[in-house]
C-alpha cells in the first residue's frame, strides 16, 4: 500500500498528532522535482536542498514528541501521587470513587501512550521510506548512514523514555488491580498505625449498595429515607454537597442501582452540585448518565429540570476522550436522551464536534447503525458531508456507511441534502485512503448499493487515488459476479487497463474468481471491438510510464560520481541450482498464524495494560532462536518455520508483549504431548491455546494452525550429482530501473523429453498402486475409489492375471502404456517400476484427498487402515502415505542403479500432486526428484464454454462453500473503519479454505510454490490462453510453468511455457543451448 495514503489514514486515527507527522507527501514531491530538473543543479545542491528539508521535518517531529512526552510524564506523576495516596488508606475498595477514577485514568493514560508510540513508529517508517526513495532516485546510498547518524539519534526515536513510561504504567495498573482484589503487596505494608478511616460518604455508599442487594424492593425507599436521614444527622459540615455529589456520581454508574433510587436520592438531598466535573476523567453528570449501561433517562430528565443545572456549559463539556455527552448518546443509541439534549441550542453548535478519534456524533450513529438517531441528528443540522482535505483528513459518513453495506443508512445520507443543492458536489469524496464510495462498495461486494449510488450521480468509471483503479477492478478482485454484472450494465468499462497495463480479466484470473471471469468473458465475446474504437480507455496507459522513466534516467547523466549502467553478455554456463533443501534427520515444524490480529481472541471486557505489539515464540532448546511476529501480522509473514531434532520434550512458549516496553502481557505454552496428540488425528492442526496474563487470569485465546513434517523414515536415496535434477535461472538485468522488464526466467532445467502421468495412491491396507484414474467406474455414474479396497481384494478383482509383469515389460511407448493401464485399471507401483522399460519417464501424480474432499465430497473415501504400524502411530496418515510411496520409488532406483550399465541413467521421474500438503511434504522429504504443484481447482467446461470450480481432485464445489468464503465482512473495528486494506484480501482463515484458495487462485498457487521451494506449477491451458500475460508473470518468479490440456480435440499451443501436458503426456520444451 502506498505509504502516503497509509499515513493519511493513520493520522486520521490520531487527530491530536495530525499536522505534526513527517510531511511525506512534500518530501516525495521534492524528490520528484529535483529529479526532473536535470542540468541546472549539481547533485550536491540537490542533496543539500533535500536534506535541509528532511532536517526541518525531523526537528518538527522531534519538537512535538518532546512536548507530548513531557506532558505524559507530568500526567503520570500526578497519577502516581494519587495512587500512593490511595494505597495509604487502610483498604482500597474496588467500588470507591477514587479507585474507579484512578483506574480509568491509568487506562486512558495507557492508551495515550500507545498513541504516542504509534506516532513514533509512523514517523520512523516515514523517514526510512523517504530516504529509500531518495536513494533510489538519486542512485546513492545515503539511507543507512543518514538513518544511523541523523535520524535514529533523535530523542523521538530513542525508545528508552517510552519504554520506561510504558513499563511504569503497566506496573501501576497491575498493582492497582492486585490491591483492589485484596492481594497483599508487601511493598505497601506501611507503619500500620495511621490507617485513615474511609470517608463517611463511602460508608454511606457501601450501606446503600448493601441494602439494594438485600432489601425487598417494595420497602427499599422507606429504608433509604431513614438511612439518608441518619447520614444527614451525622454530617452537617460544609462540604457535604461535594461528598453527596460524588456519591451520586458513583451511583449512576452502578448497574444495580435503579433509576428510582437515584431519583429518590436527588429528591432527598436538595443541595447537590450538578456542575461537578471529575478532575481526572473530565466527565460531568451528563457524561456519567449517558455512559451508564442502564437507561438513565428519567434521572436525566429530573436533573435537567433542576434549577441548579447549568444548561450553558454542561452539555458541551468534553471529557478526556474529547467527547461531549452527545457522542455517548449517539453511540449508545438512546433516542429519548438525545431529544432531551438537543433541546438546548448550544449543543447544536458542537453537534459536529470531533472526539479524540476524529469521530463526530453522526458518525458514531452510522457505525452503530442507529437509524433513528441519525435522522434526528440530520434534522438538527448535523453535516453528513464534511469536506475532505489533504492536510487534515476526516472520516466521511457516506463512505463508512458504504463500507458497512447498510442500504438504509446510505439512502438516508444521500437524501438528506436534497434541500441544500449546493452541497451536491461534496457527495462523493475520497476517504483518507483515496477511495470513493463506489469503490468501497465494489470492493466489498455490496451489489445492492451500486444502483443507489449510481442513481445519485456517482461516476462508474472514476479512478480512485489509491491504485488509480475504477470500481470495476475492486469488484473483480473481490469476486462478486453480481457486482460486476451490475457495473457493466451501468456502463463500466471492462477493458480498461491500469497503470501496469493490466485489465480486469487479468486480476480475475490471478485471483481465481471464476464467476467473475465467466461474466467478463461473456461480455468480451459479445462486443468484441466496440469499446476499442473510442480509445479513451486504451490510449493513456503508456504515457503514464514513460515520463517517470525519462526523469529517472536524466539524473545520472548530470552526475559524475554515479555508476553508468553496464551489463556483460550472460555467461555460457547457466547458473544451475541442484535439487532443493530437504530434511535429513530434523523434523520440520511450521506455525501458521492468522493475518492481522485475528490470531488473538481476547475476552470481551478484558482490559490489557498495553496494546499487544508483538508475539514472541520461544523454545526450550538452546539451538532454537526465539522468533518475533509483529502485530498486526501481515500475510507475507504469518508463518514461523523451524527444524527440530525431536519433538519429544519440546515446549513452545508464546508470549505477548507491547510494541515498546518489556512488560509481559500474556503467555501460553504448547507442550509436546499436546502438539502430537492433535497431530496424529488430523493432517493440519488448528489449535487454540488459553492465554494467561501476569496474574494468571485467563484473558483469551491464541489461535493458529501448525504443520509437522517428519523426515523420510527409511534410508534416504543417495544423492549423486548427476541424477538429482537442476534448474538454471538467467538474470536479464539489462534494465534494472524499470521494474516491469526485470525478470529472472527459468531458462532451463534438467527436465527434458516426455513424461507419462500416472496416478499413485495407496490401497486400503497401504500398498502403493498406479492407475489411470483413482476410481473404478463400476456402472455409469457409479464410481468407487480404488483406495477403498485392500490389496487382496484388488488381487481377486483386477490383478488375477499372472502376466502383468510380462506385459508391462513389453510396453514400448506411451501409447502402449496407456492401453495397458486402461485394460488393467490398476497395477502395483512396484510392478510397474520394476518392469517398465527404463527409458520411459514417469510423472507420479500422488492422489490424496484434500480437506475439502474429506469434509464435503459425496464419495465415501475410506481412510487408510494399517493396523499396528509404528510409523503411522508415531506420526500421522499423510506422513505414512508419502513415506510408503517414496520407499517403493527409492527401492526401485537403488536396484536399477546396480543392474544398469555405466553410461545409462536411471529412470527419469517427477512428482506432482493436486494436494498442496502432499507437495510440501514430498519436497521436504527428498532432494532427488522435483515436485510440481498441479493447480486444478479451475476447469473449463467444454459444453457450456465457461469456467467452473472443482475441488483439487475433480469433485464439484458446493455453492454454499464458495459463499461462506466471501462472507464475514460485517463487523468493523475501530482500527479498520476507513480502510479496506487493513482487512487483507487473502487473509488466512483456516487450512481448508487455504487449500481451496491455493488450487483456484494463480496468485496463491505461485506464492505457495515459491515459498515451499517447489520446482513449478501446472496450470490449465485454458486459463493461460485467456490471459497470456500470466505466463510471463509466473515464470518471472522462477517457477517452471507447465500448461495442461485435457481435450482430445486440437488445441492451441502457447509459446513461452516450459512444458505442456496433453492428457497424460507431459512434454518439456527443450531450450538448453549449450
Amino acid at each position, binding site marked *: 500500500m502506498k505509504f502516503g495514503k497509509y499515513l493519511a489514514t493513520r493520522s486520521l486515527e490520531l487527530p491530536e498528532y495530525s499536522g505534526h507527522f513527517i510531511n511525506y507527501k512534500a518530501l516525495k514531491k521534492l524528490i520528484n522535482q529535483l529529479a526532473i530538473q536535470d542540468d541546472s543543479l549539481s547533485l550536491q545542491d540537490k542533496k543539500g536542498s533535500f536534506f535541509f528539508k528532511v532536517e526541518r521535518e525531523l526537528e518538527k517531529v522531534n519538537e512535538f514528541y518532546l512536548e507530548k512526552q513531557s506532558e505524559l510524564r507530568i500526567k503520570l506523576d500526578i497519577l502516581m501521587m494519587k495512587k500512593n495516596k490511595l494505597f495509604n488508606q487502610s483498604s482500597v475498595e474496588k467500588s470507591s470513587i477514587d479507585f474507579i477514577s484512578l483506574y480509568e485514568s491509568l487506562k486512558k493514560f495507557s492508551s495515550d501512550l500507545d498513541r504516542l508510540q504509534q506516532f513514533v513508529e509512523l514517523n520512523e517508517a516515514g523517514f526510512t521510506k523517504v530516504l529509500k526513495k531518495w536513494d533510489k532516485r538519486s542512485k546513492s546510498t545515503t539511507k543507512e548512514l543518514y538513518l544511523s547518524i541523523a535520524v535514529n539519534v533523535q530523542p523521538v526515536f530513542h525508545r528508552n523514555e517510552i519504554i520506561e513510561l510504558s513499563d511504569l504504567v503497566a506496573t501501576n495498573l497491575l498493582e492497582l488491580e492486585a490491591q483492589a482484589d485484596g492481594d497483599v503487596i508487601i511493598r505497601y505494608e506501611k507503619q500500620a498505625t495511621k490507617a485513615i478511616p474511609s470517608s463517611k460518604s463511602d460508608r454511606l455508599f457501601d450501606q446503600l449498595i448493601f441494602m439494594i442487594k438485600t432489601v425487598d424492593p417494595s420497602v427499599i425507599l422507606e429504608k433509604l429515607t431513614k438511612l439518608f436521614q441518619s447520614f444527614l444527622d451525622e454530617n452537617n459540615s460544609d462540604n457535604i454537597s461535594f461528598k453527596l455529589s460524588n456519591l451520586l456520581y458513583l451511583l449512576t454508574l452502578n448497574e444495580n442501582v435503579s433509576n428510582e433510587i437515584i431519583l429518590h436520592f436527588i429528591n432527598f438531598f436538595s443541595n447537590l452540585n450538578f456542575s461537578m466535573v471529575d478532575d481526572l476523567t473530565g466527565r460531568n453528570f451528563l457524561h456519567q448518565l449517558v455512559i451508564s449501561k442502564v437507561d438513565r433517562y428519567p434521572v436525566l430528565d429530573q436533573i435537567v429540570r433542576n434549577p441548579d443545572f447549568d444548561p450553558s456549559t454542561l452539555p458541551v463539556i468534553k471529557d478526556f476522550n474529547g467527547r461531549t455527552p452527545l457522542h455517548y448518546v449517539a453511540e449508545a443509541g438512546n433516542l429519548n436522551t438525545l431529544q432531551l439534549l438537543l433541546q438546548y441550542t448550544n449543543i447544536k453548535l458542537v453537534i459536529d464536534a470531533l472526539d479524540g478519534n476524529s469521530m463526530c456524533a453522526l458518525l458514531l450513529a452510522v457505525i452503530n447503525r442507529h437509524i433513528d438517531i441519525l435522522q434526528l441528528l440530520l434534522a438538527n443540522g448535523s453535516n453528513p458531508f464534511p469536506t475532505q482535505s489533504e492536510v487534515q483528513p476526516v472520516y466521511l459518513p457516506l463512505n463508512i456507511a458504504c463500507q458497512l453495506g447498510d442500504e438504509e443508512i446510505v439512502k438516508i445520507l444521500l437524501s438528506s441534502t436534497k434541500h441544500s443543492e449546493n452541497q451536491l458536489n461534496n457527495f462523493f469524496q475520497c476517504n483518507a485512503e483515496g477511495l470513493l464510495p463506489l469503490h468501497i462498495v465494489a470492493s466489498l461486494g455490496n451489489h445492492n448499493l451500486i444502483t443507489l449510488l449510481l442513481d445519485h450521480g456517482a461516476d462508474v468509471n472514476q479512478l480512485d487515488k489509491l491504485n488509480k483503479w475504477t470500481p470495476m477492478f475492486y469488484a473483480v478482485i473481490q469476486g462478486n459476479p453480481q457486482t460486476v454484472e451490475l457495473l457493466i450494465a451501468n456502463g463500466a468499462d471492462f477493458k480498461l487497463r491500469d497503470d501496469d497495463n493490466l485489465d480486469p480479466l487479468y486480476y480475475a484470473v490471478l485471483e481465481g474468481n471464476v464467476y467473475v471471469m465467466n461474466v467478463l468473458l461473456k461480455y468480451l465475446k459479445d462486443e468484441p471491438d466496440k469499446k476499442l474504437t473510442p480509445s479513451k480507455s486504451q490510449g493513456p496507459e503508456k504515457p503514464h510510464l514513460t515520463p517517470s522513466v525519462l526523469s529517472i534516467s536524466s539524473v545520472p547523466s548530470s552526475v559524475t560520481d554515479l555508476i553508468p549502467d*553496464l*551489463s556483460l*553478455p*550472460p555467461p*555460457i554456463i547457466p*547458473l544451475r541450482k541442484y535439487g532443493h533443501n530437504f530434511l535429513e534427520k530434523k523434523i520440520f515444524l511450521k506455525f501458521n498464524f492468522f493475518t492481522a490480529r485475528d490470531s488473538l481472541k481476547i475476552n470481551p471486557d478484558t482490559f490489557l495494560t498495553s496494546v499487544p505489539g508483538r508475539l514472541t515464540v520461544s523454545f526450550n532448546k538452546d539451538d532454537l532462536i526465539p522468533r518475533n511476529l509483529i502485530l498486526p501480522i501481515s500475510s507475507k509473514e504469518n508463518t514461523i518455520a523451524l527444524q527440530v531434532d525431536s519433538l519429544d520434550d519440546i515446549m513452545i512458549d508464546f508470549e505477548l508483549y507491547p510494541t515498546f516496553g518489556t512488560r509481559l502481557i500474556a503467555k501460553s505454552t504448547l507442550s509436546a504431548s499436546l502438539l502430537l496428540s492433535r497431530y496424529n488425528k488430523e493432517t493440519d492442526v488448528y489449535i487454540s491455546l488459553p492465554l494467561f496474563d501476569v496474574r494468571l487470569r485467563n484473558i483469551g485465546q491464541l489461535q493458529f494452525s501448525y504443520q509437522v513434517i517428519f523426515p523420510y523414515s527409511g534410508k534416504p536415496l543417495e544423492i549423486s550429482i548427476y541424477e538429482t535434477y537442476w534448474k538454471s535461472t538467467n538474470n536479464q538485468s539489462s534494465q534494472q530501473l524499470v521494474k516491469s522488464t526485470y525478470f529472472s526466467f527459468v531458462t532451463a532445467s534438467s527436465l527434458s523429453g516426455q513424461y507419462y502421468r500416472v496416478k499413485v495412491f495407496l490401497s486400503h491396507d497401504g500398498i502403493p498402486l498406479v492407475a489411470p484414474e483413482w476410481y473404478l467406474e463400476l456402472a455409469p455414474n457409479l464410481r468407487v475409489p480404488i483406495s477403498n479396497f485392500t490389496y487382496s481384494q484388488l488381487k481377486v478383482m483386477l490383478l488375477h492375471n499372472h502376466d502383468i509383469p510380462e506385459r508391462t515389460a513389453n510396453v514400448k511407448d506411451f501409447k502402449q502404456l496407456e492401453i495397458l493401464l486402461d485394460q488393467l485399471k490398476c497395477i502395483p507401483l512396484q510392478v510397474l517400476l520394476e518392469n517398465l522399460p527404463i527409458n520411459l519417464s514417469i510423472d507420479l501424480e500422488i492422489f490424496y484427498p484434500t480437506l475439502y474432499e474429506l469434509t464435503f465430497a459425496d464419495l465415501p473415501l475410506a481412510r487408510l487402515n494399517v493396523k499396528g504400524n509404528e510409523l503411522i502411530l508415531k506420526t500421522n496418515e499423510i506422513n505414512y502415505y508419502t513415506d510408503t510411496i517414496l520407499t517403493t520409488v527409492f527401492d526401485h532406483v537403488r536396484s536399477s542403479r546396480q543392474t544398469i550399465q555405466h553410461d545409462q541413467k536411471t529412470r527419469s521421474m517427477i512428482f506432482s500432486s493436486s494436494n498442496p500438503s502432499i507437495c510440501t511434504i514430498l519436497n521436504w522429504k527428498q532432494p532427488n526428484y522435483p515436485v510440481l504443484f498441479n493447480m486444478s481447482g479451475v476447469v473449463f467446461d467444454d459444453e457450456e464454454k465457461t469456467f467452473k470450480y472443482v475441488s483439487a481432485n475433480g469433485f464439484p464445489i458446493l455453492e454454499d462453500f464458495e459463499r461462506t468464503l466471501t462472507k464475514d465482512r460485517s463487523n468493523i473495528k475501530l482500527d479498520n473503519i476507513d480502510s479496506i486494506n487493513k482487512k487483507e484480501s487473502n487473509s488466512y482463515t483456516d487450512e481448508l479454505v487455504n487449500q481451496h484458495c491455493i488450487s483456484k487462485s494463480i496468485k496463491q498457487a505461485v506464492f505457495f510454490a515459491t515459498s515451499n521451494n517447489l520446482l513449478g506449477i501446472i496450470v490449465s491451458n485454458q486459463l493461460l490462453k485467456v490471459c497470456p500475460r500470466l505466463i510471463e508473470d509466473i515464470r518471472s518468479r522462477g517457477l517452471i510453468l507447465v500448461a495442461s490440456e485435457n481435450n482430445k480435440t486440437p488445441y492451441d499451443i502457447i509459446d513461452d511455457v516450459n512444458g505442456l501436458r496433453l492428457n497424460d503426456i507431459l512434454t518439456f520444451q527443450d531450450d538448453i543451448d549449450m
Partner: protein
Amino acid sequence: MDNNSSEVFSVSNPGSPSKTGAPSIVLPVEFIHCPRDHLVVLLARILQSLVDMNDSMTESKQIHTQKLTRFHSRAPPNISIEHYLGRLAQYSYLENSILLTAVYYIDLLSLSYPVFSLNSLTVHRFLLTATTIAAKGLCDSFCSNTHYAKVGGIHVSELNILEVEFLNKVNWRIVPRDFNHETVCIRSASPVSEIKLSVSATNDVLDMYYYRTIMLVGKIDDLAVNYCLAGRSLSESGSLKRPGNEMDWTSCSLSSKRNR
C-alpha cells in the same frame, strides 16, 4: 627512490626521446607511486596482447564443452579491456596493488586451472572476479559484492558463484607470494611448476610484475604513449637491479605464458 614523486613523471622525459615522437612518460620505480591511469593503460595493454594471442590460438571458433568455464561470456562484451579495467578502477576504487594482483592471478589461475585461458570471452568476468577477491584479500576497506557486481555489469548472484569458483580453484592462496605457485597445485593434479622466484614479500612480487609489464608493453610503436621506468631507459630496464633482489626475468611467468 625518495626523489621520485609522481608529478615529476607526468611530463615527458627528455632523457629518452622516442622514435615516433610520441610523448614518453617516466613512471616511478615503485608501483605504489605510479599514477593509476597510467597503470590501467599499461595493464590493459598486456591483457590485450595476451587475449589477442590466445584468441588467435583458438581460431577455429569451436569451443569444446570441456573447455568452458564459468568465466566464459556467451559473446564477447562490447566494452574494451582498457575501458572495463578503467571502469572497475574508477568506480570500485581499486588501488594499484589490486590491479597488479589481478595480473598476478592470471598466472596463478592458469597454473592451477589449466582449462582456463584468458581470451576475449573470459577476460571481463575474470577481471571482475580477480579485482573483487584482491580487494577483499589485500585491502582494509572494500566495497560490497553488490557494488562490484553493479560496476562489473553482472548480477550479484553470479559474482558470488564466480568468487567461490575462483577461490576454490586457486586453493584460497590469494595473497601474492612466490611460493603460491607450488601450493595452488597441491589440490589440483597438475604438475608442480618449476618457477622459483627469490622474492617472497607481496610488495616485491607486485613490483616485479610492474617492471615486467613496463618492459613488455611500455613501448609499443603504434601507440601514442610510451612508458619507461624512472632513472633508466627501456633498453636498460632488462638489466634492472634492485638492492637485494635478484630478478631472473627469463623465468618470469609473464613471458613464459607468452611462450605457451
